[in-house]
C-alpha cells in the first residue's frame, strides 16, 4: 500500500536577516491613513512587521486597536492585502488563509508562489479569547504562518480594560483603585510565549519582541516567516493611553521593560532558547537588572501602588530571575536531589 505523505512544506520567501537599522527595508506596507494615538508603539510594530515581511504578504488582523484605529473605510493604511478577523480568531484566520492558498496552489488553481501569511492580535484577542485557536494553528505544521500578538497589556481599544496579560495591580477601567480595594487586578501577567512553546514542541519558532529594538524585531519577523510551519511572536507594546505616560517615552518604556527584567527578550528556535540583547546581558550577569520601580513609576497606571506594593512587585520579578528554572521564562524545573 502506498503511503500518502503530507504535502511537502511550501517554499518560503528570501528574507535575509538585517544587520543594523540601515538594512531595514525602505518598503512601507503600513502608511498614512491610520488614526492610532500619538506614541502608539503598536503602530510601529505594524510598520516594522510589514517592512520585514514585504509586499507579497497577506495580513489578517483581529479586532482590537490595530483594527479599529487602523482601518477606517476609505483611508486604509495597508498597502498589502488586509482582512479583519474576529477578536478570538487570529489563529483560525491564519490557518484558513494559509490553507486556502496551499490548497489552490497544490491543485493548480492559483499560481504557485510563497505568500507570507501573518495574523495579528492584541493581548485580549491572543492571550485571552483567541488562545485556543492560536494553539490549534500552531499544531498545523503543514502551513506556513505567523501569529503576532501585540501586547499593550489591556483591552486598549474598548477603553482600557484589564486583560490576562495586564500586570499585577495595574489601574484599568475594570480594575480601578478604590477606597476599599486598592488593588483590583490580582492576576499576574500570563506567561504566554513559554506556555505556547512548551505546549507545541514541534513549532520551530516562538519569540518575544519589542518595537524599541528595530533590527531585532525585523529579524524575528523574518525568521518566523522563513523557518517553515506555524510560528508565534509576542511583542510588548507600550501604550501611552492605557499606561498613562507622555507619548514621547514609548521607546524608552519598551527598553525599560527589558532592562528591569519585567519583559524578557528571547527566541526559541527548533527547541533551543536564545536570549537577545539586554536580556542576554542580564542573564549572563554582564549588566545588572534595573529596579522595577524605574519602569513602574513612569506610568500612571501604577501611581496608586504603595511602597509595600512596589516591594512585592520587585520580589516577584526577582523570584522569576533567581528562583525559576530558566530565569524569567520557565517557572518550574526538575525536583532537586536531596
Amino acid at each position: 500500500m502506498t503511503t500518502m505523505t503530507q504535502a511537502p512544506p511550501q517554499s518560503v520567501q528570501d528574507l535575509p536577516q538585517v544587520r543594523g537599522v540601515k538594512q531595514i527595508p525602505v518598503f512601507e506596507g503600513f502608511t498614512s491613513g491610520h488614526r492610532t494615538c500619538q506614541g502608539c508603539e503598536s503602530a510601529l510594530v505594524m510598520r516594522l512587521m510589514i517592512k520585514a515581511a514585504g509586499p507579497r504578504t497577506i495580513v489578517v488582523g483581529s479586532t482590537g486597536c490595530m483594527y479599529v484605529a487602523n482601518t477606517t473605510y476609505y483611508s486604509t493604511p495597508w498597502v498589502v492585502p488586509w482582512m479583519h478577523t474576529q477578536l478570538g480568531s487570529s489563529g483560525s484566520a491564519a490557518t484558513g488563509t494559509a490553507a486556502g492558498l496551499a490548497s489552490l496552489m497544490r491543485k493548480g488553481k492559483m499560481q504557485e508562489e510563497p505568500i507570507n501569511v501573518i495574523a495579528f492580535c492584541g493581548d485580549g484577542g491572543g492571550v485571552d479569547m483567541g488562545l485556543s485557536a492560536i494553539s490549534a494553528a500552531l499544531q498545523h505544521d503543514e502551513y506556513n504562518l505567523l501569529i503576532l500578538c501585540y501586547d499593550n497589556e489591556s483591552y486598549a481599544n474598548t477603553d482600557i480594560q484589564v486583560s490576562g496579560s495586564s500586570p499585577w495591580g495595574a489601574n484599568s477601567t475594570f480594575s480601578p483603585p478604590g477606597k476599599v480595594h486598592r488593588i483590583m487586578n490580582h492576576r499576574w501577567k500570563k506567561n504566554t510565549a513559554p506556555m505556547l512553546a512548551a505546549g507545541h514542541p514541534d513549532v520551530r519558532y516562538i519569540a518575544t519582541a519589542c518595537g524599541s529594538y528595530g533590527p531585532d524585531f525585523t529579524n524575528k519577523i523574518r525568521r518566523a516567516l522563513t523557518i517553515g510551519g506555524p510560528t508565534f511572536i509576542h511583542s510588548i507594546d507600550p501604550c501611552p493611553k492605557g499606561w498613562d505616560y507622555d507619548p514621547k517615552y514609548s521607546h524608552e518604556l519598551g527598553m525599560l521593560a527589558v532592562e528591569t527584567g519585567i519583559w524578557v527578550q528571547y527566541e526559541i528556535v527548533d527547541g533551543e532558547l536564545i536570549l537577545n540583547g539586554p536580556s542576554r546581558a542580564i542573564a549572563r550577569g554582564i549588566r545588572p537588572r534595573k529596579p522595577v520601580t524605574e519602569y513602574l513609576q513612569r506610568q500612571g497606571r501604577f501611581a496608586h501602588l504603595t511602597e509595600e506594593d512596589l516591594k512585592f512587585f520587585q520580589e516577584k520579578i526577582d523570584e522569576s530571575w533567581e528562583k525559576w528554572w530558566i530565569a524569567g521564562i520557565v517557572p518550574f524545573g526538575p525536583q532537586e536531589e536531596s
Partner: protein
Amino acid sequence: MATQTLPQTGRPDSEREELISGSEAIAIACSLADVDVITAYPIRPYDTVMQYVSKLKADGAFDCDFIVAESEHSQFEIVKHASAVGARTFCGSSGVGWFYAFEAITVTAGLRLPVVAMVGNRALDDPGAFGVEHNDAMAVRDLGWMLYWVGTAQEALDTALLAWRVAEDPRVFLPAAISCDGSFLTHSQAIVNVPTQEQVDQFLPQYDRGRLLLHPDNPITVAPQVNEDWLMEIRRQTDDAMRRTSDVIREAYDEFKQVFGRGDDSPFIEEYMTDDADIVLVGMGTLAMPVRVAVRRMREQGKKVGFLRVKFFRPFATEEIQEALSRCKAVGVIDRDYSYGSPSYGGVLFNEVRSALYDLDDRPLVQSFVAGLGGREVLVRDVEEMTQMVQDSIDSGKVKQVNTWIGVRE
C-alpha cells in the same frame, strides 16, 4: 502487503445508484465539487458528513485541505478566510455547535463570502437532546444566509451542488446553509443517483472571487471600520444580493434539470396534491414523508387536502407561496421549531407564511401546529388530527385557537 482498495465513492465515471445517507450524499457532493478547504468539529448528528469526507480524503478519492478545528467558532472562521483567498469551502454543525460558531457565521454573510455549510438540525440543548428541531439553522434567518431544507438524501446531494453554484455566483456572493433533519436525513439511507464528474463540471464552474480576491496582486482591505457613515449602504448591498438570489436560483435550477435530468417544478417549493385542495398543510424537511402518506389516505376518504413543502426558507418565496396558497380555504403550518413569545405564540414558519399571505385579497385561514420537537416522531394520525382541526376552523369560519402543540403530554 495489502492491496490498495479503490475508494467506494467520489468522482464516478458514470452515473450510478447508491444506498447512502443524506450525510454521505453531501460528502460525495464535496468530492464532485472539488472543494478546496473543509473544516470539521464533532457534534451529532451533522458530523457524519465529516466522517465520510475524511474517509474520502484518506482513500484519495479527492484532494482537499481537511482541517479538524478546535471549536465550531474556529471551524467557521477557517473556511471564511479560506473563501476570502478564493478557495471553495464546506463546513457544518448542529444545534448548540452552530450557535458556538454564531459570531463567525454572522460575519461570513456580512463579508459576502460564499461558504456552504450543512446543518444537521438538532434541538438546542439543555436539556440534552440529539433529535431534530429547526431552531438551530433558523437562528441565522436575518443575517444574509440562504437557508434550504432538504427532504431526501438525493435532494441533499443535488442541493449541495446548487448551493455552491448560487453562493459563488458574483451576483450573489452569499453563504448557504443546507439543513438536513437530524437522524431522519443525516443517518437514514436511501437510493441516490450519483452524477458523473463531467455532469458536475458542466454545471458547476470554478469559484472566482474576482476583484474581491484577497491576494498580493489585488491588495484590498476587507472589512474596514465603516460605522454609521457606510454601514447602511453596505446592508442595502447585502439585501440587493439576497433579492437577486431568486433569479439566480431559478436560472441555476433550470440548468440543473437539463444537466442532471431531475428536479421539481420550482426550486423554492414542492406542491403535493394542492391543485384542488381546500386545506393545504405546510412544512419543511423530512416531515414531508408522513404528511404525504396522510394526505394520500385522506384523499382516499374524499378529503381535499394537499401539502406544500417549503424548500428555500431564505430567500422566502413569497409570491410562489402566495400563489400556491391563495387557492385553498385554510392553511395548517407545521413547525418543527418554536418561537417563544412570538405573534400568536406560533411557530417561526407559521408567522412567515401568515405574513406572506396578508397581502392577498382573499386570504385563507392560517393555523399553527408545533410538532416533532427534539426528534419526536410525527405520525400519520397526528397529521390527520391537524387536518381535522383546520377543517373545524373552516366549518366555524375562523381560527379559534391559533397555535396547537401536537403529540405533547399535558
